[in-house]
């Protein structure tokens, strides 16, 4: 069922990204996906950044309210990341979060330079120790696999 809506007042989804919000029993996940054509034009390599959350749902807090907060933090970090790697012609093409962890995938032709940049950035307080690695697949395949 299709419906149109202006981007919500409380948050703006970044331009050029599609959104996917999944809801099931005690399960929520949120993803931002860069448009498929844009992904192809950036690069063939993919870097993965995994950030476990260290903020948790308060007692009696609605899961949807909690997740909306996580989305806000994740989008703020997405903007920051894109700014920092812009000069390397790289971009975040997939953001995927649930209540346990937040994953960024970056498309690039210079994975090592991107990793160095990431390592030089301070980790935001809302996350625990991050893990960074190069993916074995290319961004287009990874994006396709994610949609399923």
């Amino acid at each position, binding site marked *: 069922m*299709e*419906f149109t809506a202006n981007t919500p007042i409380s948050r703006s989804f970044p331009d*050029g990204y599609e*959104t*996917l*919000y*999944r*809801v*099931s029993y005690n399960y929520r996940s949120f993803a931002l996906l860069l448009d498929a054509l844009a992904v192809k034009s950036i690069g063939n390599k993919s870097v993965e950044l995994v950030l476990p959350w260290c903020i948790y749902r308060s007692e009696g807090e*609605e899961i949807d309210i909690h997740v909306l907060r996580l989305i806000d933090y994740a989008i703020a970090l997405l903007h920051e990341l894109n700014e920092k790697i812009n000069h390397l012609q790289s971009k975040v093409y997939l953001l995927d979060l649930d209540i346990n962890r937040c994953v960024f995938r970056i498309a690039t032709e210079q994975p090592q330079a991107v990793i160095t940049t990431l390592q030089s950035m301070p980790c935001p307080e809302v996350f625990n120790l991050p893990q960074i690695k190069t993916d074995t697949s290319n961004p287009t395949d990874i994006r396709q696999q994610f949609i399923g």
Partner: protein
Amino acid sequence: MDSAYCIQSPGNNVLMPLEEEQFRELKRAKKRLSSAYAIRHKFRLIKTNYALIANSLKSLGYSYLTELTSEQRQDIKNQVNANVSNYILSARTFTAQLKRHVQACLPQDRVEVNRLTRRMEIEYQRSFAYRFIDSLYDYISYYGISVHSVDVSGKLSLNNTDERVYEIKAYIERAYLGGPTDFRASVLKEMPARVELIELLDAYMESLGRIYDLACKITDEATEQSQLLLREFLNVFEGVNGTRADNLFVVHSIGDSPDKIYDSFPISMYSAQAEVYDNNP
């Protein structure tokens, strides 16, 4: 005890006597028309329930984009669930009684009724959606739920960069249905990991539409004849009494007093002029 038959309007102000044979003709016509109308009313119920599902799903999708209270969102979820439940129940009410309605219109005709039976069997065999909706009836009437998960996805609108076009998909998931004791085993086995609701309903409506069209075709002649008969009596009533034939009843009374009513049924609601029945469902 003497029987008396008549057509009358409420309040007994105006009354037209009938012979017993005329009473029986009218009773037969009413039986056929009420069955023919029931087929159409119940098909419309299903279609209306579909529209209600669509609206509540859109509201649900929108609710995940805005900050509502938990009660507000729960209300919307309840509405989706109620609408799906109503759809499935109304679909079962339709299919379970369809043959009976057709038989009431054509009491002597086995061949036509068998045609309908055959069509329903074919749809069950050929259409997964038909089998699945049929199985959902037992699941929903026992467990009270239907949708297990939703995806709300958004793309940028092609013409307006501020607007996004969203899509909500609602899923029934095999893992949450349980095992063969919770859901019809043969259908559970053939179903994919998840079934999207609107796709399912659209495919089901195609099958059901074929069944409905056949039922209408089979009963059209009997319906027309019954309406002609009804119209004749209503015309005579108007001619004799000079009043419009609105809201008339056929009454079989016993004994001296016309108040001792043995049987009574309405007829104006089955006339072709009554807007409840038309050829476009």
